[in-house]
């Protein structure tokens, strides 16, 4: 493998062993963390943006991947992954407990909705097709692992004798043939140029639903070479991937069907945010703030797992990013000779302004102070608020901000100043300016003098929005630069300027290449929000310390989105689905309740804004609607 950072999606790896070499146990741990048993005894909906790791989880849980993992457990990276999975009872004594099969939803399932039949017939066809594919998939996974199909046994529920007979569960070969027949018959209908009439359909053997899920409890496999010499009892795990491609009615039907407690198999649905409906998603986001990470309460028949968490959990993602980049660098001989961790290649030392830039800044600050009548005596207390460790250029920028704030604070100058003009106390307990204000000064220097700001491993991880693919994309830009430097015989370590330029360039290229539905409108929406955030961030008194990266509207206006949003609703769906924005509702600030539209990591980098949450510009829904008008 040349540069795994360029291979952006692990779904391109058809060999489980190659796939495993790039899977980090950290996101796996995070996924199963909490009440993991509930993931296997009830319906699970896994929600995430593209690149958040949904398909990686699904592929990992497929039976052939688990078998490959067990067979290669002598490899230290695979050993740690196997240990994690054993901790969550996915493996027991290095034997998989689950027979996982992943079915991408795809156009075939969606096409069923377009057939000219009653809703009940279409539902029956969809459920039958899914179940037939699942049975075929499970059997194929076992065969691929080396099991002989004739020796496979199917255990069904005690009260499901009739269904057992109908699906031919007594004989795995007959079971497979029956499932294949169902699959092919339905497939022929779906793909026909002109489908048969409903009457013709009823006349065929498709008059009733194929109900394998109702009956099957477990699948008993004979010995699997390299895994176990004895029989293994496996719990079937069905995973429907990309379920957002189903029609909303299909999605709701599948979701409520798989929620039935009677079903004994494990069943997971992977979907994008927009599929579960804006209202539902908003409820889930709100509820995960206050309950356990697993997102369950006892007795519920469904679990919703969010792949991307609150940005408060940045440190957790930094750990994941570090592990992933280490694994990727391990695949690159040229790099791993020098250092095994990406962090080691990235300098954390800032690059100060040049002497002439510093002089210019000094002149500006002096001119401001003099112009506003700030004597040395008045400046001294402001200067004392700045920690001694702050470099001279940042010190000057901070002083300028403090002067502006002081100007606003003097009552005579502005009797009618609104509450928002008086920022939160800028001092920490040691009576020095807070770290956030120092960051704000840095950002202002970025805009004024192009002083590098986006550097260091932590910043790359923070820019990724908890999205693994986005991290790999951004880190890939740095790795490319490192490789080039090595080729040219230079020191591979990247200074702040190199990192900053590479990240900004990569972010710009990526956003420019956005090509999902309504991407043009999303770009406009993002540009509008970013412009407002920039104004706030670059205000002389830095009212929000390190600035804004979100646009807030009153929560009451958000509640009217469905009726007043128009095209914005669809645009927002895709903006959220593709990480351009994220949504935080019921945010309490200044005695009001807000709904925040937070910029994603890439627009933040492009526009020179902060990653820290909380700073937002105030506005209205009508402004967002107007920003995307054609």
């Amino acid at each position, binding site marked *: 493998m040349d540069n795994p950072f360029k*291979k952006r999606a692990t779904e391109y790896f058809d060999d489980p062993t190659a796939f495993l070499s790039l899977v980090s146990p950290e996101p796996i741990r995070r996924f199963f963390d909490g009440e993991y048993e509930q993931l296997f005894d009830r319906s699970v909906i896994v929600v995430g943006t593209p690149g958040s790791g949904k398909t990686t989880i699904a592929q990992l849980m497929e039976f052939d991947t688990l078998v490959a993992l067990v067979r290669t457990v002598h490899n230290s990276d695979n050993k740690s992954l196997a240990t994690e999975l054993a901790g969550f009872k996915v493996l027991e004594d290095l034997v998989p407990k689950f027979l996982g099969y992943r079915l991408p939803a*795809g156009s075939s399932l969606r096409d069923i909705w*377009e057939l000219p039949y009653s809703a009940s017939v279409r539902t029956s066809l969809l459920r039958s097709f899914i179940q037939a594919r699942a049975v075929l998939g499970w059997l194929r996974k076992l065969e691929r692992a080396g099991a002989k199909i004739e020796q496979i046994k199917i255990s069904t529920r005690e009260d499901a004798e009739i269904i057992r007979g109908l699906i031919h569960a007594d004989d795995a070969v007959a079971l497979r043939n029956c499932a294949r027949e169902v699959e*092919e018959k339905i*497939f022929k209908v779906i*793909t026909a140029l002109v489908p048969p009439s409903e009457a013709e359909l009823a006349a065929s053997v498709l008059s009733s639903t194929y109900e394998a899920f109702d009956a099957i409890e477990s699948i008993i496999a004979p010995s699997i070479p390299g895994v176990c010499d004895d029989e293994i009892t496996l719990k079937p795990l069905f995973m429907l991937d990309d379920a957002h491609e189903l029609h909303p009615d299909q999605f709701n039907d599948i979701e409520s069907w798989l929620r039935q407690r009677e079903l004994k198999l494990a069943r997971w649905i992977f979907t994008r945010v927009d599929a579960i409906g804006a209202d539902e998603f908003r409820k889930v986001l709100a509820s995960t703030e206050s309950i356990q990470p697993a997102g369950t309460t006892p007795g519920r028949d469904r679990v919703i797992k969010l792949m991307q968490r609150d940005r408060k959990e940045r440190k957790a993602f930094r750990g994941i990013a570090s592990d992933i980049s280490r694994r990727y660098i391990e695949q690159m001989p040229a790099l791993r000779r020098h250092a095994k961790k990406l962090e080691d290649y990235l300098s954390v030392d800032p690059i100060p302004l040049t002497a002439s830039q510093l002089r210019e800044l000094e002149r500006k600050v002096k001119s401001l102070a003099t112009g506003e009548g700030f004597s040395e005596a008045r400046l001294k207390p402001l200067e004392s608020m700045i920690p001694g460790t702050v470099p001279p250029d940042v010190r000057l920028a901070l002083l300028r901000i403090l002067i502006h704030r002081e100007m606003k604070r003097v009552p005579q100058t502005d009797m009618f100043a609104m509450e928002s003009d008086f920022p939160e106390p800028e001092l920490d307990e040691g009576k020095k300016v807070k770290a956030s204000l120092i960051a704000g000064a840095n950002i202002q220097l970025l805009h004024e003098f192009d002083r590098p700001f986006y550097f260091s491993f932590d910043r790359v991880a923070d820019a990724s929005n908890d999205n693994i693919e986005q991290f790999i994309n951004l880190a890939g830009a740095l790795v490319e630069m490192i490789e080039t430097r090595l080729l040219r015989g230079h020191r591979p370590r990247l200074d702040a300027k190199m990192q900053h330029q590479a990240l900004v360039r990569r972010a710009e290229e990526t956003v420019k290449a956005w090509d999902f*539905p309504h991407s043009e409108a999303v770009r406009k929406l993002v540009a509008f929000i970013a412009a407002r955030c920039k104004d706030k961030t670059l205000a002389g008194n830095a009212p929000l310390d390190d600035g804004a990266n979100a646009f807030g509207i009153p929560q009451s206006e958000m509640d009217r989105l469905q009726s007043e949003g128009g095209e914005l609703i669809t645009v927002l769906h895709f903006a959220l689905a593709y990480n351009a924005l994220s949504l935080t509702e019921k945010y309490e600030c200044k005695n009001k309740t807000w709904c925040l539209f937070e910029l994603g990591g890439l627009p933040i980098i492009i526009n020179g804004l902060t990653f820290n949450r909380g700073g937002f510009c105030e506005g209205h829904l009508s402004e967002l609607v107007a920003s995307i008008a054609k």
Partner: protein
Amino acid sequence: MSRFSSKRCIAHGADDVTEFVSLHLKEAASVLFIGTVGIETSSLYYPSELAASTNVQFRFFVEQRSDESEALADLGKRHRDWLSSKIGNSRCQFVDVQIISMDGATVAGRNAVNAAAKWYDNGFTDIVVDSSGMSKGVCFPVIRQAIDMGERIGANVHLLVASNDQRMIQLNAESNDRADWMHGFQGQMGLDSMTDALQLWMPQLSEGGVAQMNIMHGHLSASSPVAEVCPIVPFPSLDPRRGDELLFEYRDAFQVDWGNEHLNVIYAHESDPMDVFRSITRMEFVRREVFLATGKKAVSVLSPSGWRIGSLGMVLAAIDLELPMLYVETIGYTSDSTPPSTIEIRKPERLWHIWLTGAPYADTPQS
């Protein structure tokens, strides 16, 4: 079977087409003409040639996309009004065809075929599909349907296309974020039995289409490996560097994202659909021979995502060789060009007629 094949396919180009239209179509007993209200005036060429022929019944699709600019919608309406006034309402019908459903699914082909099913009549001696203004998602399923119907009722089926080397209106297309099997061209793709089949992918390259190619590659590789990618580039072409520039544009995709080290490029004539047809046929016959010997299951998948005339060659190959076709539908168009104020029909630079089924193949032995 009285239809075209790789061994025998009647086709005319340039002035021969004009002659054919005059000598055959205008003189035929009863013609069903299926077209689209397009943006380019080339889509009005054949209707204008046949407008005065009272033996021709015209049926036009009006493709509906929710994401369309007002200027383009306006232009479409003007073209529709022009067609109505030229042909007369008694011989012409317009049917709206939704391309993308409200939830983003591609429904173009299914809707087009459903609409067209109502037009066929045993009385027609000739069925003409004018692909000049039709999007592929509509056109290709309708071509397939027309062939089936033509064989059933014993009618001749013709494929016409008119295009210019340079577009009058430069369009910016916004694509869907999912790949779809062309309706009627899915073959066995999606069946469990095809899971381990090796896929040989032949995408037609087009400028600015890398994102769509990645979507299609992701779709193909979701459940089984893509063994080889054989891109189709135009050569010879009006701009002799066009093929090279396309390969350069896609270099990262081929060499890095898709890990395709052995680049088997198919060079096919930019303005001759028969060259594309023959090239794909040759490649496919070789593949079948190789995989027959190894006993492995393999399938060639076509993606007609490039220039129009070339993509017609692909649909001929798909129909003749029963190959599946994968594509990404366009959800909307915008344009920075100013639409012309008047409608001027000039003879397009590229004209093609392909005889799909009927009299010339009547003596063809059954395969």
